[in-house]
């Protein structure tokens, strides 16, 4: 099979930009803390997509791009575990996980 032309890198960058913006809306606007976490996951995936796209379009010689994505996935797993433990504690205490009702620190 001949070498197939890749779609231009702009396609990947546009997808990742839009995915990041969608995740940002989720973080800003959702009330439920778990939904905020889902928005963060979307933003992390947008960053990973950028790393892999630039890795590929730089010729794939250096592996830094992929190493970064492995680190991102690791941190995302750790972050999800910690965040869900915190959310469980908050739910036990306040009987809700809506971020606008957990305002104990508000003066």
């Amino acid at each position, binding site marked *: 099979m001949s070498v197939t032309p890749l779609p231009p890198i702009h396609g990947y960058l546009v997808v990742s930009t839009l995915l990041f913006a969608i995740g940002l809306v989720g973080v800003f606007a*959702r009330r439920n803390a778990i939904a905020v976490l889902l928005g963060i996951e979307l933003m992390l995936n947008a960053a990973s997509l950028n790393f892999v796209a630039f890795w590929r379009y730089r010729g794939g010689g250096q592996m830094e791009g992929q*190493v970064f994505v492995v*680190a991102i996935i690791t941190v995302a797993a750790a972050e999800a575990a910690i965040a869900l433990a915190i959310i469980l504690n908050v739910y036990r205490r306040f009987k809700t996980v809506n*971020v606008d009702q957990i305002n104990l620190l508000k003066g």
Partner: protein
Amino acid sequence: MIGAIWESLHSGSLWQPLAFVCFAAIVLASGLLVVLSRNLLHSALWLLSCLAGVAGLFFLLGAEMLAAIQILVYCGGIVVLILFAIMLTHGLGHTDVRVANQQLLWGSIGAAGLAGVVLHLLSQESWTMGVAAEPVDVTARLADALLNPYVLAFEVASVVLLVAMVGAIVMARAEPE
């Protein structure tokens, strides 16, 4: 017309852009549904399809190992963890009357503005990066990179995971009465 499409399908020059468009549509549509879904459980399940689409894009870019890790860790681990948390806190099929807080307008404007600025900058830049031939031995070279130059980062990641695991267990444990 049809003959040309068939010809390019046969030579393999059409399926890659076609697969890209399919995966991009899956990613963006399910990403939107993650944010817009009123039922939190549906949001988490749409996240599953969004992450699978991102894995498809990784595969398309020639990063097979990362696509496999994405499916295993994200779709198999993180989404299941999130589903557990939803069921432990929120209950199944529960739909909030109001899913968005009062920052919806400004958040949407800010996100749309950010996307507009970035897309504008992207359209001004003409990336003429050399698209070399398909990279070979990607997985072997990733393993080599993780265990030779980046072994410190690799070990730090494992310590981070251990600390997070212990911390999550300690925090989520029920307090003694």
